[in-house]
């Protein structure tokens, strides 16, 4: 057991996952914590990013082009989801975006020619950039950290800017924001595109990390719940919260492996444990570890 903990391969994998989920959590936090909408479509953006990246990369596209294209494809889907839904009230947006998750999931499962359906796509390569081979686990972790750090920096700059301040006015009071002359629909759309774009980037990193995407149940509700938990545990509306949340949740998730239980029970116990943590957080400290007040869901 101890051997597993100190096994560097295991730790590297653990950290890579953590980095990916930090970006997923942070990008979702733009919507949940800043404009204050419960978006349940985030795994859909993630999936679109992952598949776009994979299909382009495996057809010989340059790594960065494929990665950005994944982000752009996800961003466009964010725009397409945002236009009809962002004029709705917040709980209707939650339902509509959940529908989006289902649509993307069924497309992934059924577009056999493109996605190989439930079989998934194996053999996704890792990149060689400027002669540096990133196929090793440690090298790929470093690459992931670099890309995620740049992404987080961009998100940080935006959220701390006057633009980010307008997003907060939307969370606080849409009507007041409108009355000050803010075209809040435009800001909501921009936030949605931004959020989706980085979910797409996370999709690309994820695909090459596992060197495989798909399979039944991938990019669906369990992952959605996990990303949501990252946001809520870290704290909605807190930049660092999402990163802390990803670290805390991943640690807890992995810790279950080392409990003295049967191997077949590990999966269900992991799911049950983070569901329990989510419930406890909502009861004991709904602002999350580093979060601020979330009042949006009471609207």
């Amino acid at each position: 057991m101890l051997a597993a903990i100190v096994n560097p391969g295991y730790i590297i994998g653990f950290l890579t996952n953590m980095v990916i989920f930090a970006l997923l959590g942070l990008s979702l936090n733009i919507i949940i914590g800043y404009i204050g909408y419960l978006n349940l479509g985030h795994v859909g953006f993630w999936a679109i990013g992952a598949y776009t990246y994979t299909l382009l990369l495996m057809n010989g596209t340059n790594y960065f082009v494929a990665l950005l294209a994944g982000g752009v494809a996800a961003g466009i889907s964010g725009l397409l989801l945002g236009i009809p839904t962002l004029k709705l009230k917040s709980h209707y947006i939650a339902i509509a975006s959940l529908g989006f998750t289902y649509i993307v999931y069924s497309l992934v499962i059924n577009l056999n020619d493109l996605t190989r359906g439930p079989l998934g796509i194996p053999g996704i390569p890792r990149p060689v950039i400027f002669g540096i081979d990133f196929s090793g686990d440690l090298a790929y972790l470093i690459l992931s950290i670099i890309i995620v750090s740049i992404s987080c920096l961009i998100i940080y700059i935006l959220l701390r800017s006057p633009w980010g301040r307008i997003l907060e006015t939307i969370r606080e009071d849409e009507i007041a924001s409108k009355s000050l002359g803010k075209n809040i629909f435009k800001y909501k759309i921009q936030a949605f595109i931004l959020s989706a774009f980085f979910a797409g980037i996370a999709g690309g990193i994820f695909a090459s990390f596992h060197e495989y995407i798909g399979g039944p149940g991938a990019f669906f509700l369990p992952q959605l719940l996990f990303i949501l938990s990252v946001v809520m545990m870290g704290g909605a509306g807190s930049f660092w919260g999402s990163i802390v949340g990803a670290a805390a949740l991943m640690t807890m998730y992995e810790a279950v492996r080392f409990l003295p239980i049967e191997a077949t029970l590990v999966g269900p116990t992991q799911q049950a444990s983070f569901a329990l943590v989510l419930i406890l957080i909502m009861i004991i400290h709904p602002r999350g570890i580093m979060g601020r007040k979330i009042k949006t869901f009471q609207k």
Partner: protein
Amino acid sequence: MLKVQNLHKAFGGVKAVNHCSFTVEKGSITGMIGPNGAGKTTMFDLITGLMEPDEGHIIIKGKNVTSHPAHKRAKMGIARTFQAIRIFSEMKTLDNIVVALKDHPEKMYQAFLPLKKKQKKIEERAMELLKDVGIADKAHLNAAELSFGQQKLLEIARAVATGADLLLLDEPAAGINLTLLNQIRDYILKLNKEGKTFLIVEHNMPFIMGISEKIIVLDYGQEIAVGTPEKIQNSDRVIEAYLGKKKE
């Protein structure tokens, strides 16, 4: 400055605003009174674009804005406060003002430009506005931590921050003490001297009669009397709306 023509808005069978017309002259302070449910707040919502009228026109600065969305109207220089305060309570007091200022660099790409100087200037301007209403010492607190009266002042200052020259205040005097009331009155008079136009809904009669040049009385969504405060106070029609008809 503002012209309301034959405006009509019904909620089911209730005619909240019933073919109502009036004007607010540039540079004036106009009061709007009427019993509860007379349609005053609905009128504000229609003027500012938060609601769409069923009929009629709203003309601001000579432009028909009836089909303009709220944010577009606000950009034309119209700002308001709300009966139930709507401040950004989980944001800093200062930021409540900063977001409202006209040259707030809020475009997405501007986040990546070096605008430190501009931001500082804006914050200084916001600070001045907070000073004007006497809550500059609370600038770095969350707006939620302000007292009710201070929140009202903040909301008015925020409306002023937009640079609007037509200000619609929905019950600025409600629920606050006399000292603060006098402060708000002085602030309104000062801004009016600087050229701002006011339309004020208020139930506090001494306050509104003292400050307004013209009073519009609404009842059941219709303007039943328009005139100087003296004229309104002696109007049988107005007394009837508030107190009911005298028995013959």
